[in-house]
Every structure is written in C-alpha cells, then in structure tokens.
C-alpha cells in the first residue's frame, strides 16, 4: 500500500541513471547496413509507413507526404538525405517491411518523418561512451554529433546524428 512497485527494468534504469550521471537516451536504427542513432528526446513517435504520397517538384530527399491522425507530415528518405545510395531500385512502393518512419520533433514547429531501414534498440549513453566527431578527421559533416560505443571495444558502433542541421534543409 502506497509503496511504488518498480519493474526490474525500471529499477535497472534508475540505478544506471544514478551511477552514470548525465546519460542520454538514443534510439539506434539501421540504414544501409550501418547503425545510426538519434536522441530520443527529438522523436515524437515511430510509425509503420502508411501510404506515402509523392510530391512532384519537392527536393530530392523528400519522399512524400503521409497523414498521421489527420495531420500532414513530410517524410524524408534518410538515405537520400545522407547521400547513401539505395542498393536496389529507388522505389517508394518497394519498402522493406521492417522500414519505419521516425517522427521527429525538434521544436521547429513542423514534425518531419525520417524513413529508416529498421529500428534497433534504445541505448543510454554516458558522455564517456561518446567520441567527438573530430575523431573522424578530415571533413566534418555538421550533422554527425559523435560516435557512440555503448558496449565497449567489441560492441556496436553508433553514428550519432544531430537532427537539427539535417532537417533545416531537406
């Protein structure tokens, strides 16, 4: 009575948050074989792709429009936006069943959908688990916020994206 009941996951999450200081939650997803991640705080929801309506004359990266509960949302193909060629045909109709739309909300007043190949998992990254993008050397694309190594040396490598510059000009 009156004692809050925590699930195991919640307890673990609370413990981690306590020990790691300012851990930030990232959603990892797959795009052209690589793992990328964006801050969960910038996402509103994850959608199974509804029918997408092409917009003629739109910028190339814009896949089209979808309706999310009556609201129009512009969907951007993240591969095209990042200039990663799609392996097989470049067709909207032939979407992988695992493909998802990440509905972003970065406070610009417009929610924009990002099409990704597959949503993977949520990581809580501590600052020491994030390498600065400077590590990449050479040209530093403004939309890469860093490299995440959530599970040490042998674990996966996440390319952390900063959505703001990415969405500023599709």
């Amino acid at each position, binding site marked *: 009575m009156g004692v809050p009941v925590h699930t195991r996951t919640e307890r673990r999450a609370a413990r981690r948050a306590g020990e790691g200081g300012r851990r930030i939650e990232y959603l990892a997803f797959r795009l052209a074989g690589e793992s990328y991640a964006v801050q969960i705080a910038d996402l509103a929801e994850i959608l199974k792709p509804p029918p997408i*309506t092409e917009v003629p004359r739109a910028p190339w990266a814009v896949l089209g*429009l979808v309706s999310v509960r009556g609201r129009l949302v512009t969907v951007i193909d993240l591969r095209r936006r990042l200039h990663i060629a799609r392996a097989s045909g470049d067709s909207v109709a032939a979407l992988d069943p695992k493909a998802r739309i990440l509905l972003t909300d970065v406070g610009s007043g417009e929610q924009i959908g990002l099409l990704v190949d597959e949503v993977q998992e949520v990581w809580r990254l501590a600052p020491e688990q994030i390498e600065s993008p400077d590590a990449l050397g050479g040209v530093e694309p403004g939309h890469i916020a860093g490299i995440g190594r959530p599970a040490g040396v042998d674990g996966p490598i996440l390319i952390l994206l900063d959505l703001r510059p990415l969405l500023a000009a599709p």
Partner: protein
Amino acid sequence: MVEGGGGRIDPGDKARDEFLSEAQELVDGLGRDLLKLDETVKKGQLDPELVNDLFRAVHTLKGLSGLFGVTRMAGLSHQLEDVLDDLRLGRVELGTPVLDLLFRAVSAYGRILAAEKGQLEEPAQEVEQLLLLLGQVAMRKTGGVAGPAALYDLDPGLFGVLTEYEEHRLRSNVQQGLALYRIRARFSLLTIDSALDELKAAARPHGEIITYLPTGSGADADAIELEILMASRASIDVLRTAVERPDVTLEVVRRREAPGPVSLPPSPATIRPTTPPLAEAPLRASLSRRPPVGGEGVEMSLRSVTQTVRVDIRKLDRLMTIVGELAIVKTAIAKLTERARRRSTGPRELAVELQRLNRTFERHLAQMQGGILEVRMVPLGQVFDKLARVVRQISREHDREVNLVVTGAETEIDKLIVEELSDPLMHMIRNAIGHGIESRDERLTAGKPAVGTIALNAFQKGNHVVIEIEDDGAGMNPEAIIAAAIRRGIVTGDEARALTTREVLALVFMPGFTTTETATDLSGRGMGLDVVKTNMGKLGGVVDIASELGIGTKMTITLPITLAIINVLLVEVRGRLFAVPLANVEEAIALDAAQVRTIESREVLSVRGTSIPLCRLGHLFDLTREESSRGRAFVVIARIANRRLGFVVDELVGQQDIVIKPLGRSLHAVRGFAGATELGDQRVALVLDVGALTEEVLIPVENRFFATVDDPGRRFARIGGE
C-alpha cells in the same frame, strides 16, 4: 494563417485569452471612433460625444489592463485618459498634432497586444516616447474661463458652480462667436420635470443650453425659478418666439465694454504666461518622423492578435438544432443495431433502414458543415476599418490628400482569410497612395479634384469574394515599367517589345520589381507586390491589375469565400491522385486527340470553336511511372479570371468535399500546390494551385524568366535539393 492553422492559441489561461480578445475589440473600436473624430475635426465641427466615447473606451482599457497586469498598456491608458479628459474639457485644443498622437497610441496598443501574445517585442521604446509626448500635450493646458467671465456681464460667482465640462462648453461657444442668452423661467414644482424638458426641447434647435441653475429669488413654496444660460447664433427675436411663454423671460448677456483685447479667445500663452508653452516645433518634428521602432512604422502587421470569432447566438442555435437531429439519428442506429443483434429484422429490411438513416445522416452533416462555415465568416469591414486608419497615416506621411471610399464592407469571408488579407491590402493601399495619387498641385494641373480618391470595394461573386482597390491617381506608365523591368533584369529589351499591355502591367508582380532606382523611404519599405501576389495565391486568390495613364489604377483580388472545406475534382495522373478545386474547373471532357493542334510547340485543344492551351500534368510534374495504358485521357478545363487552361489527366475519379491542409514548411519552395488533403483511407492527395499553374504555363514572361533553368519540372528539385 495558412501555416499552422488555428492551433497556436496558448494553452491554459483562458481568462487571459478573453482579455486579449476584448482588449483587441476595444482598440479596434478606438481606431474607428478616432477616424470619425478626425473627420469631424476636418469639417471644423467637433462632436463632444465622440471624445466622450474615446474617453470611456480608454478608461475601460485601463481597468482591464490593470486587472491583467499589463502595466505598459495600463500606463499608456492612464496618460491617454488624461489627455482625452483635457480634450473633453477643452483644456487642450483638438488639432492634427494631438490626433496624430492618438492614432499612434492606437497602433501602440496593437503592438502591446501583439507583444502580449508573444508575437512581437515589447514596444517599450515607442510607448515611452509616446508617454512623453502625451505628457507634453497635457502640459499645454489652457487656463480657465477667465475670458468669458471678463468679457460678459456674468456673475463671477457663476463660475464657482459650473462644472468643468460646462465651463468648457461656455468657453468654446464664446470662442465660436455665439451670443449668450440668459433665460429666467419660473416652474411649478409639480410640473417642473416636463416643463423643463419642454423648454429645453424648444431651445435646442437654436443653440446649446450650457447650464441651468436655481436663482434663489422669486421662489415660493411650490415654484422655483431657474436661470438658464444658453449660447445661440439666433437673434433674440427668433429665440423669444421659440421659448418665451408666461413665466419665461429672455435676455441677452451683454458684453462688457472693456478696454481689454476684444479679440477672442485670448491665447493660452497670454492667459498663463507661466505655463511653459509646449514647443510646437519639436512636437511637430517628432511627429513627422516615423515611430522609431525597428524601422517598422505602419508596415507593422495589421493582423489582430486574437483568432476569436464573435458568433451570433442564432447561428449557434441552428447548429445546436442540427446536433439534436444527429442525436436522433444516433438513437435510431442504436435501436437498429439492437434489432439486428436479436435477429428480429431481416437483412433486406435492415439494409433499407440503414440506407434511410445514412441519407438523413448525410443531410444533417451537410447542414452542420454549412453552419460551421457560416460561423467562420466575418464581414470584411473588420479589415477595412483598420485600412482606413492606415490610409490616413500614409497619406499624411506622403503629404497626399486622400479620401477613402468603402463599399461592401458587409461582405462576409472566412475569418482566416480576413486575417491574411490585412497586410497585403495595406501594402496595396500604400502603393496606391505612394505611387498613384499625385500631389495636390499636380492633380489640379491635370484637371482632377484636389483630393484623391481610393475606392475599396468588395462584393461576392458566386463562391468568390472580389475586392477592388481603385485609385484616381497617375496610373502606371507601361514604358516606365518596362524600363524598370529591364534595369532589374526581369526581361530583356527584345522580350519586352513582344509583351501586351496586360503582360507589361503583370511585370509589377515579378520578384525584385521596383520602379524606384534607390530604396527610398517609400519603396524600400515592406514587401513587394510579388509577395502580395504570392500570399494571395496561398489563399487561392488571384490579383489582377488594370491601369490607365493619367486616369488611375485598379487592382482586383478574387478570393474563395472559405479555405476550410472545398469541393474538388479528383483526377488520376500516372497512378497518382490529384485534387483540382472545383471552383476553378469549368468542365471536364474526354480528350479527343483529333482536336489537338500544336501551335508554336504548345498543344492547343479546340473545344466548340475556341482554342484552349493544354498542359499535360504528367510532363509538367515529371511523373515517370505507370504511363496510362488505357490509351484514353481527359481534359480538365480550368478558368482563372479570364484565362483558360486544359489539364490533361488519365482518369477522372470523382468529386469530393475535402479539408485542405497546408504543406509543411519543409515544402515551402514547392510551387503549384495549394496544399494536400487526406482522402479518408489514409491516402493523401495534393491539391493543385490552379492559379499558380495557369500562370506558370501561360504567362510567357515567366516562362522566359525561368527558361534558363533547364526543365521547369526539375528546377525546384535543384533549388531545394542542395
């Protein structure tokens, strides 16, 4: 308001929203009254009641803003109240400088309200300056009524009992050179009310009753003698026949034969030499400057800060009735469901019943839709009133005399459209005054009336509202336009020669167009006409221009009555659905290939003896997949103003009422679409912006303008892409 719809009302504090909308209304009313006052002052006759109205409105605003902690507004109101009180009591002369300040105060109110809504920075500096100027006005107060008392044979004790307002009226009547009369009347206490009213009624046509006071003499237990002080232009004989009866005597209040100055009125300065005379010159100078707020001046938005609509309660009652009807349908469906569950009704019977209910439901829904649309409608007068204020201000800035004639202010249009209209209209009026109306001397030389006229006309035409802005100014000089367009690189000399007059006039709507070499105070400000046009296009409207040199210019805006719900024709082009607003569709016919000719590389269809240029949407939009295999096609003939264009499509799908939604900011650069709509099955269809497309396809200037950028269908992809 196309962007973001109506959804940006701050959550939470409802009372505050109400305050804002009430304050907005008061400020709007203030603007209206001020205009009326301005008119009466121009005619040289002051209506004291108007000043009283203004005073009351400001007083209310003061109370409201104090209540909601909007200190800046409260402070302004307080100072304004003082000035208006002084005006009311004649302590300050009502002239153009003071009126200008009052008009500025109204726009400052507007800015404060906008700031309260978080749309603008607090106009701190402007309000400070305004307060200072208003304070100066209050300091310029003139003295009491020493003049009349000294000049007329009046009991000095009289002034001890006059109210300040009466004193002012006395003074101003004397100043206007009216004669003063003293009426002594004896009233029976039993009938004094009606008798006094009678007397007042008899006297009123001849002048103003300033005050009436008991004389204290000649009174007995059941009678009272009043002394009535009256100002009149009429001769004593006329007055005598009007008011005299037994018990009433009338006499002229004689002027004192004083050696002092006979001229009236004594100037304030001579009465009170100690009052620091308000430096007239600095005040004028600071008035003629534009308000020092971020270079905005009048260019500041005229939009209201609230999105509230006032609704006639009867309209709501009708809606409520319809809701009642819908509830009945719902009950019927529930009963039917129950019967179906118990299997007490056969399937055929069930189907018949359902069909009947569906019909009823549809009918009520249509009524509901109509009713709600009606609620959204507001009279254009809302924006016209504000424009009248702008006309006054701009014409003073440019030293032009302009008369604004408004007709059709009662024409109703969707609230959202009204809001979007105010700024473009303001700009067009600014243009008409700045570039159109000539100076007084030029006008007189040209044999025109000295005062220019701008006519603002509105009327409904089918499902559209037409707004005309017509000036009787200098008109547009086609040669000057061409020269300017060439200078700006909008057209080349060769191209210009090929243009018709109409096409030449259309050049003023091109981005970057201006006739002025350097950005002056006038042309360098605000948006260009191209923005006006684009904004109108977003509202589904078109702007047309007609001008005759030396006679004047007329701009015509044609707008749909509502944005919210439109009836569209759904068409299919290479597997994609598009919606064409039916308001723009003249007819849709099967494409008869035999009737298509190619004239100068443009396909033209002959329909009943007229030629209609064709536009293949598949090509225009560069749609590659799924070429129509059926081998047939249709033409949707669209008409915008008096241009016609046939859009070639693969299939006509049907008509539908849709709620049109704007494309997001990320698709801002994409031209040719008015928005998109969800079709009910999660599919989205783009709604064609027929006006923009027609223009893009038909207007040669624009084709040439973009001709350097390879394929027109691709050009936006390049601009937006990288």
